[in-house]
């Protein structure tokens, strides 16, 4: 019985440049999630409030002329920084963002370590930076759904339905504030999850650890708050910090009426800077020493 029915053929076709090698890793990380119905459902759930925001836009721009509804529409929230701050920083959005982070983020590096495939990838012409970029971009891709992407869609609807870019100049902060929020918030989370994932070999354990940090942390802070009544105890709570970041970037309160920014802005910025810096340090230590291959 012949072992090889077809001889070996050499390859002399084109090869992609080294800088593009991250793309297949990114694609293979993202595709399986896009095929899962439950995951897509989660994304749709996250977009529902934004659908409400688009509906508001529609009301404000198209129906403002009719007398019957004028009064009704005047009562509705305006489409401005305040609305976006609410949509970004409310518990519902942040909660779903965290769920998706755990779902996608816990296995980023840990799964490859568990399967023994990390060494296989790094043994190809794919450097650790490209690998991390591909994996981080995969998570970042999904986190955009909870941050910049729906804002962009909302802005497009607003400007498109009125045909005037005037709104845009007036409410420029909506755009750059959201972009800033995305960069400082969700993307720092991406770094954090990459770092966390590189330390473990079990995606479940990594996910559980992140879950503990995100959900049990605030619980502990809550207890401390009840005791000390000092707003600074909320420093390590990721939910509070993300909410504060939204308020900071958009200059509006997430819960109008309630005192916003219970933490000083410096504390929020410090938190995310610390989170990003420590994540980068962990990643550098793991990947440079090749300890991550063990």
């Amino acid at each position: 019985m012949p072992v090889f029915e077809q001889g070996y053929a050499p390859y002399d076709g084109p090869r992609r440049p080294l800088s593009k090698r991250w793309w297949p890793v990114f694609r293979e990380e993202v595709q399986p999630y896009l095929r899962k119905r439950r995951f897509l459902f989660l994304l749709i759930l996250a977009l529902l409030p934004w659908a409400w925001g688009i509906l508001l836009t529609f009301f404000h721009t198209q129906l403002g002329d009719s007398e019957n509804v004028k009064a009704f529409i005047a009562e509705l929230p305006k489409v401005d920084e305040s609305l976006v701050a609410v949509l970004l920083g409310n518990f519902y959005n942040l909660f779903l963002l965290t769920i998706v982070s755990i779902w996608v983020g816990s296995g980023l590096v840990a799964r490859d370590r568990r399967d023994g495939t990390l060494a296989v990838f790094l043994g190809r012409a794919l450097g650790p930076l490209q690998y991390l970029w591909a994996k981080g971009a995969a998570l970042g891709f999904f986190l955009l759904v909870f941050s910049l992407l729906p804002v962009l869609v909302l802005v497009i609807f607003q400007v498109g339905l009125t045909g005037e870019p005037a709104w845009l100049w007036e409410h420029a902060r909506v755009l750059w504030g959201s972009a800033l929020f995305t960069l400082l918030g969700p993307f720092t989370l991406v770094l954090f999850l990459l770092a966390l994932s590189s330390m473990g070999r079990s995606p479940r354990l990594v996910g559980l650890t992140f879950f503990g940090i995100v959900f049990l942390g605030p619980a502990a802070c809550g207890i401390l708050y009840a005791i000390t009544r000092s707003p600074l105890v909320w420093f390590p709570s990721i939910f509070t910090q993300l909410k504060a970041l939204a308020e900071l970037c958009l200059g509006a309160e997430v819960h109008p009426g309630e005192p916003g920014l219970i933490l000083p802005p410096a504390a929020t910025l410090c938190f995310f800077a610390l989170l990003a810096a420590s994540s980068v340090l962990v990643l550098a230590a793991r990947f440079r020493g090749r300890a991550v291959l063990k």
Partner: protein
Amino acid sequence: MGAILRVEGAKARYGKLEALRGVSFEVEGGAVGLLGPNGAGKSTLIKAVLGLLPLAQGRIWLMGEDARKLGPALRDRVGYVPEREGTRPGMSGVAWVAFLGEISGLPRSAAVERAHEVLQYVGLGESRYRNVETYSTGMQQRLKLAASLVHDPALVLLDEPTAGMDPVGREEMLDLCGDLVRQGKTLLLSTHILKDVEAVCSRVVILNRGEMLSYATVEDWTRSEAQHFLVQWEGDREAFEAACRKAGVAVSDGHRGLYRVVLPSGESLKVIFGLAQEAGGTVTRLVRESTSLETLFLKALEQNGGGDARV
């Protein structure tokens, strides 16, 4: 054509441990075995050739180019069949190999095409659409070989390629290695199984404690001396031994009837058969005695102070 691989004065360390202490050799082509006791530096050398471990001193040239200058691109020209590393469950054989091909630079369609080709080549044609976690050990090894070939490297590094394979699978794997050599690929085969090296390689690098003890060729381990023979004897052993001694034929080592025989110079093998008739038994096998790779290897270790042998 110049050497495919050239290592010069390679020194490498893990922290304080000196894993390689100045190894130098050149591979023009064909298959080279990499032997050594545990901890000799074999995997360190492989990692260095792959560019995954920076050398503290020394250089490595791949097809005439300095490995340092090539950077990650050097791994486009080298294939690696690791001993342990795995596959991603949930992907089929083709999907996995094509994925790795893409990472090594092949455009998507070319990667898929090549994946099919190499899987057919290694004999996994029928299992290509099955998920990799359903593959047996032998199939996994062949899958790793396919993955190492998808980007058509000139040099393939194999780490224990027949590990865990049954005799049938082993033979097929070694046949594949032999065929790769015939196709013009250069192989560096690191293994503990000397028979594998004897089957495939034309040269061996013997390492111990980070140093290269010897760079031997196949002639060195198939050398035989004139008038030295191995005789398999069936019958009365004492009678045979006595008859040999009487005829002035040196005989030794009667374990299970396999004797080492040294004929006086000028004598032909007819003598042995005459003695066999005299002793009333039969000679079932008669071959020239030659050294083996095992003897060569153990001798090299012994001369170097035993290596890890006691451990």
